[in-house]
């Protein structure tokens, strides 16, 4: 949208304002009897969005439900990671939400890139891994162990090899390195 802030109805009287400085209550400039929340625009430097399919120009098919296109349009740079790179993605393609290449800065082929979440038509979410992450995230020391096991110094291929079990159904899971 490109607006610097936006009025929103709600939130009055909550403790949210004690913890955030990007939302305030302000008087409606056209109606002094009304107040609403005014929220500062969120403009990420970079958005990374995972697609089912993308083409080399940056057209892509994102998850159907969600605000990915809005996130892309709010961000300065947009990286689309995709399960598959195909010749052409168009707005007529079914199974996802189309994002035009004009909103996309770069495309990366990243099969399995949504893990531990799932991608409709490719693989289910990995509930065991999400539980492992949640246990780790509840404790500083456990989280360091999680990072050491899966993230720090690991390549994408090593990560995918470690988590490749049970629920993965797509071809890349059966093959060798990406």
């Amino acid at each position: 949208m490109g607006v610097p802030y936006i009025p929103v109805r709600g939130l009055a009287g909550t403790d949210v304002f004690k913890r955030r400085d990007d939302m305030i209550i302000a008087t409606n400039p056209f109606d002094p009897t009304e107040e609403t929340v005014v929220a500062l625009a969120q403009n990420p430097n970079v958005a990374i969005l995972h697609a089912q399919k993308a083409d080399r120009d940056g057209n892509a098919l994102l998850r159907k439900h969600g605000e990915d296109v809005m996130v892309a349009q709010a961000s300065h740079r947009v990286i689309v990671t995709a399960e598959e790179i195909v010749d052409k993605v168009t707005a007529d393609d079914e199974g996802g939400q189309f994002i035009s290449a004009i909103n996309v800065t770069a495309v990366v082929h990243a099969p399995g890139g949504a893990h531990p979440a799932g991608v409709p038509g490719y693989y289910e979410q990995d509930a065991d891994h999400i539980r492992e992450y949640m246990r780790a995230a509840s404790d500083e020391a456990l989280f360091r162990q999680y990072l050491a096991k899966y993230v720090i110094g690991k390549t994408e291929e090593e990560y995918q090899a470690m988590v490749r079990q049970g629920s993965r159904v797509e071809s890349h899971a059966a093959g060798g390195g990406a």
Partner: protein
Amino acid sequence: MTSAVACNTEELLAVLMSREIRDWEISACGAVSMIPAAALLLAEATHAPNADIIILGSEQLDRNLGKDIHFLSQRGKLDLFFHSAIQFDAEGNFNLHVVGDPNAPELRLPGGYGSGLMSYTAKRILFFRTEHTTRTFVPKVDFVSGAMVTPPSIKRPQDNFKIFTTMAVLVFDRGTNSYRLESVHEGFTPQQVQERTGFSLGSLEGIPMTPPPTEEELRTLRTEVKERMIETGTYPQWARTILQPA
């Protein structure tokens, strides 16, 4: 009076809340809302065949609305929305964020959006809780995720707020800014409800009994609604295990 058929907590709440859903209106529930989903489908199968029903999180019944539901509610066009909370307090505040010290919480909950936005904009809010205890109904919530009382400058053309629990139906009156008992479920007294509530519910005299689920309501819930939940991908596992055999 006795109810003809025994039922579990989820079935009780689904039946009681389904009665609040009105024909021709737009009623919705958010994600991970199994009891409201059952209530919506029960209403549609019984007294509200023309209701517009939105079940976020259902494979087939979420209507692909995405952010439309947000703007529908912001425009004041959403008639009814379901909401739960981990704590409610005497002043009409509710908490679906954290339990304990907000800086080092014992429990974190995903409550920011529905509490802070939907519950200010949908015309009627049905709160529900699968227990009725003094840990839920507290003198003061640990974190205010949403407030039922706001200054007149916050435009909120909403009805009184209702809370459905395992023991009673509470009403937060937007005129007096206080709670009262609307009805008490079969098997409980108003005094028992007050004992399990950490603030005053006002007068305990002349409180009617909640009409218990009828045989017909439970039968429909356990057959038509259960089948529809399973075939539309609306919490099918929950429907199979929680909704009892007819």
